[in-house]
């Protein structure tokens, strides 16, 4: 063999060897890579700054805290449970850990804008499937369930699915297939792309490796949120989520629009019953019922606490008595709705004060403490896993 041919051969052989080495490092990273000193998902470690944490990282955060004899409490849900409005040392899940004590380990995997059974909730499902003692705490508003796929954090569903992390739940697969069949071509193409990426990652393990590199060493993708120093490792990103200002400075956003949102929690879910009161509308309740059945595997349900988070009294007290009656009826009815499906639904916030809220929906530190006390009781009320 001539020397130029030998050089070419070495180069060609080294390429797959390099790729295989990276795959191996990625597979190993799936077992250990996770954010350090983790409290919650802030902007630096979330998709808002193009940091799409892989499913394995979320699992590793939970498993790193677990020890035999302890129950893992996964807090999923949206920005309210993420602690938006509370400074990092005041995040309500730290208080929940104090309330629950050493027998429980609380992990806040709530993503801003997530649906009640999305993202972090799937981590609880995965851990339960692997026989870890788990409680899932999530939140929603009446009438909202949504799908595990098709939203901002849908990539985590495919990631977990193709790595074999989830319960076999044919109703969920059928629901998503049915939804996709009626979706626009753009949505279908997007879902196809997510599935392809997840299938490739299940074989080549690139997400864990390069997210680990991005967290510990160097982040390689420009994004406006961490610009101009976008290359800084995400381990150095500070938790800079907003913190509630003094009470006098809160609730200053446009009253009319916030009131419209508050009314919107119940306006399409009940109708006048003809005798001056309200009754629950059938079709939206049926949709919620179907989605709970389709999205949440039965084995998960007795391990779940679903919080129906109320709006701040600043807005609720500005509803007319009729609107308030509708709001109360809808919250109570949907609380029962979750319970009918074997899930411990609880309304929270009715006895909170304006001081407990950062804005219409998010809680300040005092509200977080109240939420922690309530949630600790609800978690203890569940049958031991």
């Amino acid at each position: 063999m001539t020397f130029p041919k030998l050089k070419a051969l070495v180069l060609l052989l080294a390429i797959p060897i390099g790729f295989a080495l990276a795959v191996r490092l990625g597979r190993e990273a799936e077992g250990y890579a996770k954010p350090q000193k983790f409290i919650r998902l802030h902007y630096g470690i979330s998709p808002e700054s193009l940091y799409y944490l892989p499913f394995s990282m979320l699992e590793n955060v939970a498993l790193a805290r677990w020890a035999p004899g302890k129950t893992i409490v996964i807090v999923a849900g949206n920005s309210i449970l993420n602690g938006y409005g509370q400074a990092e040392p005041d995040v309500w899940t730290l208080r929940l850990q104090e309330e629950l004590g050493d027998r429980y380990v609380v992990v806040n995997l709530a993503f801003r804008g997530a649906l009640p059974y999305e993202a972090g909730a799937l981590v609880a499902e995965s851990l339960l499937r692997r026989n870890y003692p788990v409680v899932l705490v999530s939140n929603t508003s009446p009438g909202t369930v949504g799908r595990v796929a098709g939203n901002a954090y849908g990539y985590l569903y495919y990631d977990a699915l193709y790595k074999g992390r989830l319960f076999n739940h044919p109703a969920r697969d059928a629901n998503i297939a049915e939804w996709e069949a009626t979706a626009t071509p753009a949505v279908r193409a997007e879902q196809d792309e997510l599935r392809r990426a997840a299938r490739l990652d299940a074989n080549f393990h690139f997400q864990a490796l390069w997210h680990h590199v991005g967290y510990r060493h160097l982040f390689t993708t420009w994004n406006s949120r961490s610009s101009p120093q976008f290359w800084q490792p995400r381990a150095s990103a500070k938790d800079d989520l907003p913190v509630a200002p003094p009470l006098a400075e809160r609730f200053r956003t446009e009253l009319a629009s916030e009131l419209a949102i508050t009314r919107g929690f119940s306006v399409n879910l009940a109708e006048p019953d003809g005798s001056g009161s309200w009754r629950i509308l059938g079709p939206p309740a049926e949709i919620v019922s179907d989605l709970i059945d389709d999205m949440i595997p039965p084995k998960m349900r007795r391990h779940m606490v679903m919080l129906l988070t109320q709006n701040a009294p600043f807005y609720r007290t500005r509803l007319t008595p009729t609107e308030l009656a509708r709001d109360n009826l809808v919250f109570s009815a949907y609380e029962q709705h979750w319970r009918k499906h074997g899930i411990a639904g609880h309304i929270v916030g009715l006895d909170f004060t304006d001081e407990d809220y950062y804005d219409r929906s998010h809680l300040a530190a005092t509200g977080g403490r109240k939420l922690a006390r309530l949630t600790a009781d609800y978690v203890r009320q569940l049958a031991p896993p």
Partner: protein
Amino acid sequence: MTPSRLRQCGALTARLAIGLTIGFLLHYLLYRLSLPVQPFIYVAF
């Protein structure tokens, strides 16, 4: 080792290093292509 043999070894080591780097880059490319954001061509490095 003669200087020419040394040069040949250096050249082969360089090819090996380049090949390994390309392999890692292909792996990195999968990560970048699969970020659920804009199409790859629009993503600024």
